[in-house]
């Protein structure tokens, strides 16, 4: 075992992919000389050169579309859109082109591109730099959406995503990059991105979450555990397609569920999951499924207001208690 950060894990995964497959290259704003807005690609320019660690102009639609086109052309591009906030400028390319090409062409073309972006709030970056739009992407057929929440997944998911012949959106929560954790000294690292992962087993209630909210969910489960409430914590890991089976089987055991999602409550992925539980496990439920989401406001800058807007460990604990009527 060795101790590395989530950021290191992403960087290792990038290096490995570049070494394994010469069709792989990384493109995006400041991935090269700057070393990446979150320093994920620091050092890679020296190792792989300008062609494969490709700095782009500020042109989200242009270079994301170019990544999609390069994938069509036989490459395996990794496009880094600095943050999901800026991806609002390239949604046309992702939704109208990447997600539809296979279908529109009657199965003639595939688009094996991986588009990485940082997501989420928690760093006092205010209203234009704190979105969590995972459910927007999870809504779109033709895309796969993944969200590594652990060091191991950060290390392993990229390669699994590159092996997918279709476009994959990879969300990296900005607050995770500095997280440290133990990881095996050597691979294999590949992750099964068709399956959700149980991060903690439990029998009284199921907490379903992903990405940046996983640490909060585990902390809540820990505290509740000390009080004798045993929570199962499910890390969705892949947001599209959802591992509904895993969700339902857990709820069938615990009969109670709380979904934690940093997206704004209305229209959130948490809503979708609640609906799927309604449809697939209604008669198993002892209490209504609860959601802990972000308040319905653009994210404020002030620390205390931002904290009040986002899902908190306390809010998760309270929600679990409510479903248990304790």
């Amino acid at each position, binding site marked *: 075992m060795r101790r590395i950060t989530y950021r290191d894990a992403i960087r290792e995964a990038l290096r490995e992919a570049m070494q394994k497959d010469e069709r792989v*290259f990384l493109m995006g704003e400041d991935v090269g000389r700057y070393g990446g807005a979150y320093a994920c690609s620091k050092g890679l320019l020296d190792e792989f050169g300008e*062609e494969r660690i490709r700095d*782009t*102009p500020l*042109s989200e*639609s*242009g*270079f*994301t*579309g*170019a*990544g*999609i*086109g*390069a*994938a*069509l*052309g*036989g*490459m395996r*591009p990794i496009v880094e859109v600095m943050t999901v906030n800026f991806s609002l400028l390239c949604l*046309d*390319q992702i939704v*109208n*082109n990447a997600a539809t*090409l*296979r*279908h*529109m*062409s*009657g*199965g*003639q*073309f*595939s688009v*094996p591109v991986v588009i990485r972006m940082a997501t989420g709030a928690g760093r006092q970056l205010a209203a234009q730099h704190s979105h969590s739009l995972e459910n927007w992407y999870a809504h779109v*057929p*033709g895309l*796969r959406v993944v969200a590594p929440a652990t060091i191991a997944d950060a290390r392993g998911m990229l390669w699994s995503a590159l*092996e997918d*012949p*279709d476009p994959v959106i990879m969300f990296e929560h900005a607050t995770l990059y500095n997280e440290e954790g133990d990881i095996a000294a050597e691979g294999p690292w590949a992750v099964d991105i068709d399956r959700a992962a149980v991060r903690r087993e439990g029998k009284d209630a199921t907490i379903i979450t992903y990405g940046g909210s996983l640490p909060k969910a585990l902390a809540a489960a820990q505290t509740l555990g000390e009080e004798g409430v045993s929570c199962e914590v499910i890390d969705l890991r892949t947001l599209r397609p959802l591992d509904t089976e895993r969700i339902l089987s857990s709820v069938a055991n615990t009969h109670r569920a709380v979904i934690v999602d940093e997206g704004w409550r209305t229209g959130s992925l948490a809503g979708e999951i609640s609906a799927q539980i309604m449809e697939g496990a209604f008669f198993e439920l002892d209490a209504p499924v609860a959601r802990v989401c972000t308040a319905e406001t653009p994210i404020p800058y002030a620390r205390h207001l931002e904290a009040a807007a986002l899902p908190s460990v306390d809010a998760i604990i309270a929600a679990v208690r409510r479903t248990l009527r304790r």
Partner: protein
Amino acid sequence: MREAYDRVDLTTEHMRDLAHQMILIRRFEEKCAELYSAEKIRGFLHLYIGEEANAVGVMQALKPDDNIVATYREHGHALARGLPATEVMAEMYGKASGSSRGRGGSMHICSAAHRFYGGFAIVGGGLPLAVGLALADKMRGNDRVTCCFFGEGAAAEGEFHESLNLAALWKLPVLFVCENNGYAMGTALERSESETDICRHAQSYQIPAAAVDGMDVLAVEEAARDATEKIRASEGPFFLENRTYRFRAHSMFDAELYRAKEEVAEWEKRGPLVQFKRWTIENDFLSDDDYAMIEQDVAVIVNDAVAFAEDAPWEAEEDLLKDVTTPAAAVL
């Protein structure tokens, strides 16, 4: 049309071939219009009638290995590229034998075999893809040109700006072909661009650009040969502005309130077919009989296409979700 054309193969064979292609596109689309009224074809139908010289002329300069990205007005490009009229027509019918198995329709004609990437219906949306295809070729060392067709209306879109800059910055082998037919739906160029000289926009990215008479197939072929030669040599993009005109409505829903019948009539006099026919006859390349023959051959092709489409099967409803993602088996 002009006296002389350099670098165009001025033989009877080639002239016949060009005439055949332009007439095929014209008759094929006239038939499509009929079939639309007959409700055999639905959705949007954007006719290329009047603009045939552009697709046909440009394709002469492209090799089978080159890539093509087109718009929703792409029947002409597809046929000029050599897609079988049968499969194109079946696609318009929405049949399983269509080039996109009926999933694409008129706006999304595609053929991997012809490196014809389609059929894109978001104005400007094809440009970034073309840049990416060219980037892949450059990185893999393929000697290939990616030819991207779009209308002058697309020039106002941000994706135009971003794509031209990337292509020039990275010296990518892209041939940008702007089919300037004067209107974007009902909006005349001067109402959408502060600078109506599209070439000047291209040049502002350091991309060499040339304007050509898009009603003269030989002029277009010549310009395209120049352009592709420069691209293959310099590995940088080139920009062609083809000055042309759309004779029909934008789509089948357009009442054409924005232009005068006289204006259309004026341009029709300079139509690519009439001009070329006159020129090839005056210059003794082809005769009236040759044209009669061509019309006959074309009529057969169009009729066969319709027959093929009529008889073609419908995709099974159970296969609705096919082609949303790629089956693991198909992984390269």
